[in-house]
């Protein structure tokens, strides 16, 4: 079956999950028509970017069983690649492509060096070293203001075809004006779809099976004859490249990039939350989790605002349900997920037979 091949025979295996995924797919595919308004479209675009970013992280965390805190670094490299190239060489397609190429090259090199260097010793080193390198990189990016625009970041123009001012139809189509923004959204959507399907392909290939074997028992995998270090390094490089492409998408959508947009540790934590709550070791988890987190980020605050009058005046409680504390609730949900359903929402929906992701 065509669809099954597209999904690399890794079907949702749960009716609820299938319905959920179809709903997400349709919702994102028709977002400009179904959810009018600038804010809704921005949220939809953010969902798309974060799904790709989280899926790339899942490749590493869920499938290979190693924790990296440098995912946002590669995310940032991609976004800065486009931003810097567009600023320097003008808003043309060749300059964007060159920026993407350079960004991919930098990510490849960096992830290779980090992987070979730290995965050789102990897997737990990797977590600490990526944390250190990523934070140093974020500092560096905000210091090199000639190149990166420093703390202010870079605002740049995209090619004419994607600019909001470019109208393709004189009349709005089904109440939506078909402009550069509309085209940008669909570029994002199609590219993200291809990337997610590609990652699904990777994790369901023989290579992906080896990664899972390493996750379950690296010693045994080594004994069977797989070079664990090589596989782990390849996985971390692949994950870095996908994260870079997610960064490219974000930069093209926002037409801006700065340290807080892509490199901050908060975003790293968001990605961690997405993957763990959504379900480690299931690319679908990144999709579900991404939608959940971005919606929570943008709309949970509205919900919490309604709860505020109920506890108004009670000192600590009113602070705890304050709209700014949405992350507290997700943090608690995160801890509970790690304990009680390590395979996340997706694992829960698929029933008890979901694989446990731990080393």
């Amino acid at each position: 079956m065509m669809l099954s091949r597209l999904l690399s025979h890794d079907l949702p295996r749960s009716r609820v999950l299938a319905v959920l995924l179809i709903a997400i797919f349709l919702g994102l595919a028709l977002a400009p028509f179904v959810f009018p308004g600038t804010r809704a479209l921005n949220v939809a675009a953010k969902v798309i970017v974060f799904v790709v970013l989280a899926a790339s992280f899942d490749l590493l965390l869920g499938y290979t069983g190693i924790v990296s805190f440098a995912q946002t670094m590669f995310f940032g490299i991609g976004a800065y690649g486009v931003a810097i190239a567009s600023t320097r060489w003008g808003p043309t397609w060749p300059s964007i492509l060159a920026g993407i190429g350079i960004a991919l090259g930098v990510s490849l090199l960096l992830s290779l060096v980090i992987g070979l260097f730290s995965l050789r010793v102990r897997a737990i080193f990797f977590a600490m070293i990526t944390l250190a390198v990523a934070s140093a990189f974020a500092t560096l990016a905000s210091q090199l203001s000639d190149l990166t625009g420093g703390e202010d970041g870079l605002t740049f123009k995209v090619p004419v075809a994607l600019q909001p001012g470019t109208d393709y139809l004189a009349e709005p189509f089904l109440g939506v004006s078909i402009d550069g923004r509309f085209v940008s959204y669909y570029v994002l959507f199609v590219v993200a779809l291809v990337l997610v399907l590609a990652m699904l392909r990777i994790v369901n290939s023989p290579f992906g099976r080896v990664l899972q074997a390493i996750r379950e028992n690296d010693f045994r995998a080594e004994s069977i004859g797989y070079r664990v270090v090589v596989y782990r390094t390849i996985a971390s490089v692949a994950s870095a490249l996908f994260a870079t492409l997610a960064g490219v998408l974000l930069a093209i959508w926002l037409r801006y990039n700065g340290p807080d947009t892509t490199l901050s540790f908060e975003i790293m934590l968001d990605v961690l939350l997405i993957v763990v709550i959504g379900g480690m070791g299931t690319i679908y988890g990144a999709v579900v989790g991404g939608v959940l987190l971005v919606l929570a980020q943008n709309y949970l605050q509205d919900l919490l605002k309604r709860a505020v009058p109920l506890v108004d005046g009670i000192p600590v409680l009113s602070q705890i349900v304050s709209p700014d504390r949405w992350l507290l609730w997700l943090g608690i949900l995160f801890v509970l997920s790690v304990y009680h359903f390590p395979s996340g929402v997706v694992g829960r929906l698929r029933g008890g037979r979901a694989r446990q992701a731990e080393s």
Partner: protein
Amino acid sequence: MTATANVASPAAPPDDTDDAIPKSRFDWLPVAFVPLLALVAWPLMGSTSTWLTLTGAGLAMGMIIFVIASGLTLVFGLMDVLNFGHGVFIAFGAYVAVSVFAGMSDWASAADAWKNLAVIGAAMLGGGAVAAAIGVVFERVLIRPVYGQHLKQILITMGGMIIGEELIKVFWGSTPIVLDLPQAFRGVFTAGDAAVEKFRLFAAAFGLLAFAVIALVLERTKLGLLIRAGVQDREMVESLGYPITRLFVAVFVAGSALAGIGGALWGLNQHGVNPQIGASVNVLIFIVIIIGGLGSTTGCFVGALLVGLMANYIGFVAPKVAMFSNIGLMVAVLLWRPQGLYPVTSR
């Protein structure tokens, strides 16, 4: 546990825990790096007074980092638990110090040096006590259920960090708070042209004291003997009938308290606190314990001093790459000794 640990064998004989019966020689080489680094930096700093000032600041910073990181490295050595949420204790320590200073503002602004010292003492004590209390909860709720599972440990302690940071915002708000030193600790001691901040001298003295106490407890008491034995071979200690879990809780809580005290000092050293203080220090202490060798207290001390000095020298010469200098230091050390300066045998 992991297969890879066996592949990279330590380059040097493991003589960190040096009080064994056939007495092994203490490895002085890493310790010599500290004065060596200072000497190399001397001609590069331009003037001797600048160099003295930077060295003083670097040593003080290193001592504070050591106070914070010592608990983390011991906990890792003893139970193979890597606590990514260690920053929570630092942050709570610093914030409690803010509250103590606000509560005792009369004494903090008094001209009497003893009253000032009492405020700092109370802040450190309060920070340590609160951090210890949180440490008890943290260990019980977050860490105990996931012993022996590295991946879950990293995730869950990271989750603890998120929650802790948010709780700090609940209690103290999310904006940075200025933390001024008490009257008597402001200003500098001058010797010739060189100036060393008074507070940093105090912090360095305290750090040295903390190191001495930790070293004494580890080397000269039965408790220390058990802890060192546990770091070397946990199962053996357990099979001899000692309650290693209770020992671990004690070390964890003590480590949390030290982190809280260090957090209070760090907040004062930075003249202010923000909710991200824990996460930012976390990065530094990870570098320190990797450099020192996971589980080694001596290594942690040497690593902390190296990092503190390096951060100050490079921060003066080329501030843009200051953060990378520490990573460069870490890479250099790991290329030389893949397990850190003082490798711990069983890891």
